[in-house]
């Protein structure tokens, strides 16, 4: 589709391998139930009976808050909307999605500081940037499409700054590379802001007109001299100063960030720092500028917009606001919707272990592979009285279920998806669902009805119509208006063209001002020590996607990256007599796994890296969380490595 505004017809390797996944022989084709370790195929009727009995029993014996729902950031907006409606209509406050593991700090932090959580500027707009600051993102491998726009920006003279503990493929694009220690982003950003303030490179007019809180920030960053930040981060002071000047002086600077910023116990602080930097330099609301959280799943933005989150209802109305319950109660015809925020995805795991959750309905999520500390997750899920998993493959999580429901893939159903640019697009059904799989929309309808609710949605458009009426930013997004390129929200009416660039006319917050929220640096939760002397950081590589349940089933992708590996600096490998290709054991307090050593100078001594696409990496990661956003600190753990022989 060369006419598509974001990718112009190009694809990353995962997109090119998509059909190997849709047509994979492992596709779940029939509902199944488990007894012991045996799986038997059952009819849909029987499956629905078991599901309504399993969830119903937990509700009856313990209460609706003893049931947890995980919605899928891969499913359509319509499906996400229905899943959160199902949960809340049954009286449960516990509905969440895997954004909890990735951009929850952005959802929380950006809603608070900027009044909206999503990329402020669209992807093609990057070509208009004069300074692209990429921090905590390996977009060359994980958001490959963005590279073409950054190259175009560079062709017209833009400079690129990359901050990452690893010298990634993204760092190849950099003019200035800041190789910081994992978890020290606030120190770096605060120091940059101090330089900008001291050298009077701030945008005074913007600050006084459109923000509040600047004076507190000046005080808060005062101690963060470049020298102090250099000590904390390992980045030379001269580079910190140079980066600050580059970013502040350019007429249009964009900050792109992803998991390197969010997946920390200081995730929300990190996000707010990023916003602070953009705000004091006035790099908001204009072309080529902005704060761009790069979201990973095809519909994680939409899943959040649709309120499949513990702290938000559709349209980001707060779940602990009584007005929200009233509004949706009226719309849905339910006398009293549950008030207050529910358990987040990460808290649901703990709750399952502690008996505070008796049953779970998991759609298109794989916590047994994606959550940190896998052994603990497995114990917790096994402790549930009833678990139903709806997915396209028998994932590690599905293996633990009592009932498995076969879902249709993207090619076999229709609906809208919202990309990272806030771009809502309609996707048509290309083929019929395989086997007896059904679209998640159809399944959720049936589950709801089997539990006594009246869900009467014959198709995605009927749900979209309801979304139009209840989510103001989606009000004008109707099927007829969704051509190639879709519509970018907010789109508050059917004659509104959409809003590619946010905040160009002020912020949707109290008195129209963005909030500058100063933060202090605090180190990551887990420290290295003699027993575990190396920092383990985790991430992704180009040919695989997340926990790998899809991409590890694609022959084309697997032949390019078949094995779990650990990147280790030669300085760390040599004393342990580890050579490139050796099989090694990596351990943390939580577990051990085997990996192939990749000796490389892309990581500094003291830091090792493992991709989490293969089971094993998450045996090791910590479940220490950001206090507010509840996201685990996937990016920092203390580990040790040894040769296997």
């Amino acid at each position, binding site marked *: 589709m060369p006419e598509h505004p974001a990718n112009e017809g190009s694809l990353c*390797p995962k997109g090119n391998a998509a059909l190997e996944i849709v047509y994979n022989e492992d596709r779940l084709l029939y509902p199944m139930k488990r007894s012991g370790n045996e799986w038997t195929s059952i009819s849909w009727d029987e499956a629905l009976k078991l599901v309504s009995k399993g969830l119903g029993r937990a509700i009856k014996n313990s209460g609706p808050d003893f049931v947890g729902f995980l919605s899928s950031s891969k499913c359509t907006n319509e499906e996400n909307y229905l899943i959160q409606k199902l949960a809340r209509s049954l009286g449960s406050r516990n509905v969440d999605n895997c954004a909890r593991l990735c951009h929850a700090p952005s959802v929380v932090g950006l809603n608070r500081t900027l009044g909206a959580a999503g990329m402020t500027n669209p992807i093609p707009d990057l070509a208009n940037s004069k300074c692209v600051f990429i921090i905590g993102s390996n977009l060359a491998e994980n958001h490959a499409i963005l590279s073409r726009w950054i190259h175009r920006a560079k062709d017209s003279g833009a400079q690129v700054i990359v901050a990452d503990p690893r010298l990634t493929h993204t760092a190849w694009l950099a003019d200035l590379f800041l190789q910081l220690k994992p978890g020290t982003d606030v120190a770096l950003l605060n120091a940059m802001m101090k330089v900008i303030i001291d050298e009077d490179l701030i945008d005074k007019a913007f600050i006084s007109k459109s923000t509040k809180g600047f004076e507190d920030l000046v005080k808060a960053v005062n101690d963060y001299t470049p020298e102090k930040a250099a000590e904390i981060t390992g980045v030379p002071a001269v580079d910190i100063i140079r980066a600050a000047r580059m970013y502040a002086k350019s007429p249009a600077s964009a900050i792109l960030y992803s998991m390197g910023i969010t997946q920390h116990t200081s995730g929300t602080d990190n996000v707010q720092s990023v916003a602070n930097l953009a705000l004091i330099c006035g790099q908001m609301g204009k072309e080529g500028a902005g704060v761009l959280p790069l979201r990973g799943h095809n519909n994680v933005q939409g899943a959040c917009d649709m309120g499949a989150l513990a702290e938000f209802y559709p349209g980001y109305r707060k779940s602990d606001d009584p007005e929200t319950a009233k509004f949706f109660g009226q719309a849905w015809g339910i006398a009293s919707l549950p008030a207050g925020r529910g358990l987040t995805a990460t808290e649901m795991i703990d709750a399952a272990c502690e008996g505070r959750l008796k049953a779970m309905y998991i759609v298109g999520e794989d916590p047994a592979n994606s959550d940190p500390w896998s052994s603990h997750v497995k114990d917790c899920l096994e402790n549930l009285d009833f678990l139903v998993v709806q997915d396209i493959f028998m994932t590690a999580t599905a293996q633990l279920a009592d009932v498995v429901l076969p879902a249709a893939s993207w090619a076999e159903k229709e609906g809208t998806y919202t990309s990272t640019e806030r771009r809502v697009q309609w996707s048509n059904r290309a083929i019929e669902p395989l086997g007896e799989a059904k679209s998640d929309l159809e399944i959720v309808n049936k589950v709801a009805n089997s539990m006594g609710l009246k869900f009467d949605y014959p198709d995605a458009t009927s749900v979209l119509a309801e979304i139009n009426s209840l989510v103001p930013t989606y009000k004008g997004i109707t099927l007829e208006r969704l051509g190639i390129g879709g519509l970018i929200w907010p789109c508050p009416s059917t004659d509104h063209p959409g809003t590619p660039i946010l905040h160009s006319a002020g912020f949707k917050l109290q008195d129209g001002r963005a909030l500058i929220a100063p933060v202090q640096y605090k180190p990551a939760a887990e420290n290295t020590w003699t027993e575990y002397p190396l920092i383990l950081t985790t991430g992704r590589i180009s040919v695989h996607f997340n926990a790998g349940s899809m991409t590890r089933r694609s022959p084309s992708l697997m032949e390019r990256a078949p094995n779990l590996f650990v990147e280790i600096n030669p300085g760390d490998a040599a004393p342990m007599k580890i050579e490139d290709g050796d099989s090694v054991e990596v351990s943390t307090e939580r577990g051990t796994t085997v990996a192939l050593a990749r000796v490389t100078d892309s990581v500094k001594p003291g830091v090792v890296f493992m991709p989490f696409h293969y089971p094993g990496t998450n045996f090791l990661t910590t479940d220490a969380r950001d206090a507010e956003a509840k996201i685990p600190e996937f990016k920092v753990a203390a580990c040790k490595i040894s040769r296997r022989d």
Partner: protein
Amino acid sequence: MMRVYVDINRCIGCRSCEVACKRVHGGKGHVNVHITEDRASVPLFCHHCEEAACTMACYSGALAKDGERTSFSLDKCTGCGLCRLACPFGVVWTDKLAHKCDLCAPNETPTCVLTCPAEALSNDYEVALKRARARAGRATILGGKR
């Protein structure tokens, strides 16, 4: 000029070209991305050389020059593998029979060029030249400093 040009400066080593090439050629792809010293990546495929060594080694006439293109006719291939050994750049592959970049003929634009997310590939010499010039110009503006 009849080949796919690579702007190594733009290549991000994502390997999408490999997967796409394989997909449109029935599972036999003929582009290979090599990463050098963890600092750069280079997709390698048939150069469609003017003096093509593979055509000299091929005794069956399967490989031959066709204007600027080095063309390959599967029905003449004997699977001897001499072409694979004759290619100075190692970009003729054999899987019993030979296969190599065919510029996705008869399509106007090779699939790898269409799919590359970073716009690193081009079969248009003018475009490749323009990008090289832009890069040189940029280096001059920024004083060659990094």
